């Protein structure tokens, strides 16, 4: 047996915890039957779904994140990093060992909900919901662990100890993004209305790259695919923790996958597809800018490798933000080259170019703050800087120069040319400042 899985079973699934879990589950299901009155099966199904939601989508992701963060807090992480376990053994041992009890509780809920709904004529929807539930659980748990690993890397590189805050923030961000995505997904011309609606309501067809797919199956398949990516992320980040180097294929491929996936559900012409993919690439770029450690040693190694034309060395040290930015640039070109007259859904090429210029500026702002003298405060400084640049800049600009003034600080659809030029100039200036910080030598008073 995987020793990490076994250790987690020893710690997390002891007899006392087993007993308490059994008591709580028995109480919940017993109460459901009592409250259900004439419809005990239906009540059990609802209770089962609720248990699954709580255990698999709330409890287990929290434990999965803490499986790494607690090792750091309890000072056992270095011991683990020295182990002979492979990164995959370490990742799945923690992921499914630490959450074993939560999975057992969730399984009872899933089985009850599936059986109850199946017996009351749920048809395909039961299977869709079960697969979607498992996919969502794995996605959230592996995502939570990946976020914890990102937090650990950042904390170490930036001389801090707290990693769980980042996990929590990232998890909330993940749910918010999932909610936002779910709302914009077209189903019968309407949004899904929220990420959980699929449990209770039937979904229409989703047209994805011209294929009409039943909404439930589309959701289940998408969740499984993103869950697989989350597992890849946890494994790749674990490799880094165990001091192994990663050739950077996973993040660019994921960004490409996410862009293609999102572009597929936009059925409003090639330009619009490129624009949506570009927005996803930009989101990936922002995520990388915040998620990667502010490690100027690695950046210098990247610059040195480039100067020496050592492309393999440069690839290993390349900042993760580069790949999604390149993809976003390709998306901008795609929008510009898309045939005209395909409908109003495609944004003007100049506006997309302006958005790209502001993306570059924003990444410069993030780098400037995160590579500052106090990296621990970099995130807050970057968010504040972006808020001031967009909101205060936009308000001041519009007060002084109306739409033209506003276009100086935001990718304005009214004056996209001015916005593109202004964004480009700001990007250059901000990156000069950021680069001066990145290149600044370390003090010699270590």
């Amino acid at each position, binding site marked *: 047996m995987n020793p990490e899985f076994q250790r987690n079973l020893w710690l997390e699934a002891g007899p006392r915890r087993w007993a308490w879990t059994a008591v709580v589950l028995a109480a919940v299901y017993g109460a459901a039957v009592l409250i259900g009155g004439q419809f005990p099966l239906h009540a059990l199904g609802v209770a089962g779904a609720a248990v699954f939601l709580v255990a698999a989508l709330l409890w287990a992701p929290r434990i999965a994140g803490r499986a790494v963060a607690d090792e750091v807090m309890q000072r*056992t992480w270095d011991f683990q990093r020295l182990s002979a376990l492979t990164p995959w053994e370490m990742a799945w041992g923690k992921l499914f060992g630490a959450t074993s009890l939560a999975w057992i509780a969730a399984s009872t809920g899933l089985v009850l909900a599936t059986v109850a709904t199946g017996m009351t004529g749920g048809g395909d929807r039961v299977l869709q919901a079960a697969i979607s539930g498992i996919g969502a659980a794995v996605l959230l748990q592996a995502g939570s662990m990946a976020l914890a690993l990102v937090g650990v890397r950042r904390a170490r590189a930036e001389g801090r100890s707290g990693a769980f805050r980042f996990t929590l923030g990232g998890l909330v961000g993940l749910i918010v993004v999932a909610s936002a995505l779910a709302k914009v997904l077209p189903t019968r011309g309407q949004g899904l209305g929220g990420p959980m609606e699929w449990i209770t309501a039937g979904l229409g067809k989703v047209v994805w790259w011209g294929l009409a797919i039943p909404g439930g199956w589309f959701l289940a398949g998408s969740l499984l695919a993103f869950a697989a990516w989350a597992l890849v992320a946890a494994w790749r980040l674990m490799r880094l923790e165990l001091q192994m180097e990663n050739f950077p294929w996973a993040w660019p491929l994921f960004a490409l996958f996410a862009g293609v996936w999102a572009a597929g559900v936009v059925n409003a012409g090639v330009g619009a597809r490129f624009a949506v993919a570009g927005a996803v690439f930009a989101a990936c770029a922002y995520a990388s800018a915040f998620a990667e450690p502010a490690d100027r040693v690695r950046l210098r190694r990247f610059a040195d490798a480039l100067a020496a034309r050592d492309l393999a060395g440069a690839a290993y040290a390349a900042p993760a933000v580069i790949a999604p930015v390149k993809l976003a640039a390709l998306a901008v070109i795609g929008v510009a080259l898309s045939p005209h007259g395909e409908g109003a859904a495609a944004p003007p090429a100049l506006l997309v170019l302006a958005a790209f210029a502001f993306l570059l500026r924003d990444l410069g702002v993030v780098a400037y703050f995160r590579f500052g003298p106090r990296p621990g405060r970099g995130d807050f400084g970057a968010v504040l800087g972006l808020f001031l640049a967009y909101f205060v800049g936009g308000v001041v600009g519009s007060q002084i120069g109306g739409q033209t003034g506003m276009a100086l600080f935001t990718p304005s659809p009214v004056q996209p040319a001015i916005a593109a030029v202004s964004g480009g100039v700001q990007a250059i200036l901000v990156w000069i400042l950021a680069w001066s910080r990145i290149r600044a030598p370390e003090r010699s008073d270590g």
Partner: protein
Amino acid sequence: MIAAQNVVYDYPSARALHGVSFTVAKGAVLALVGPNGAGKSTLMRCIAALDRPASGTISVAGIDTHADPRGVHAALGYLPDFFGLYDELSVRRALVYAARSRGVPESAAAEAAARAAARVELSDRMEQRAGELSRGLRQRLAIAQTLVHSPSVLLLDEPAAGLDPEARRSLSDLIRRLSGEGMTILVSSHILAELEDYCTDMLMIRDGRVAGEGVISAGARSQGDSASGTRIRIAFSQAQPDLAARLADLGFLVEKAGADEALLVLSPGDDEAGALARLVGAGLMVRAFTPLRTSLEEAYLEEARKPAAGASS
């Protein structure tokens, strides 16, 4: 066994190591000493391949920490200054997990755990939870976890910190035993008097640089220049008016001589027993024969006064 060459390590806001170079021979017990914030722990983490230097190379048992960090992990045991244990696990389970996670096959894990427990004298507490152990016993368990896969190199960062005198003595005994088994050990500590008991070499780190002349061996820790040999204070039972001349005739370098007392410097090739035999053989009544060695603390202070070696910036 350990070779560091020009190691530079940067934290986000400051450089912690400035071109540190040194080597440690197989079987040596190296005391890594220096003031707080000197870079000892950072250096240990780099040797353990847990942190990657900005430049320079480190090899452990012939394995480069950058090229094969996992190979280095397998070759060594590392106990950080602030270590943690799985408090809910019994000593047996903690050691079995440590063995399994360090690559010991499942069939041999129980035996490896028992052997490691015996090495640190924890065999009688195998069923006790780690959280119930005293600080000294926790330290022993942590060391047992680092030893369970029989590494060839052991890195101990401030292992005696917070231990009571009895636990410290027990730790010293353990390190001596491990050293006797041929393990190469690197120990950092502020308690220099204890390092004296078991260290064969000393390396002082100051402001991220190697202080003085680098690694100095215990044999060279005699008063005066190590290149000129050990100094010996000798007292004779009878006064000799021509003592200086007689000693010079016997081939000794006489630093100072009175009627019944002398201070000699042995040639680098001379051993102390041979010198004593020559004196007795010449009919001199030797009352006391005292090789003059400095304590580790004195050597530390002496090194601290010398300019840094191997500094690159």
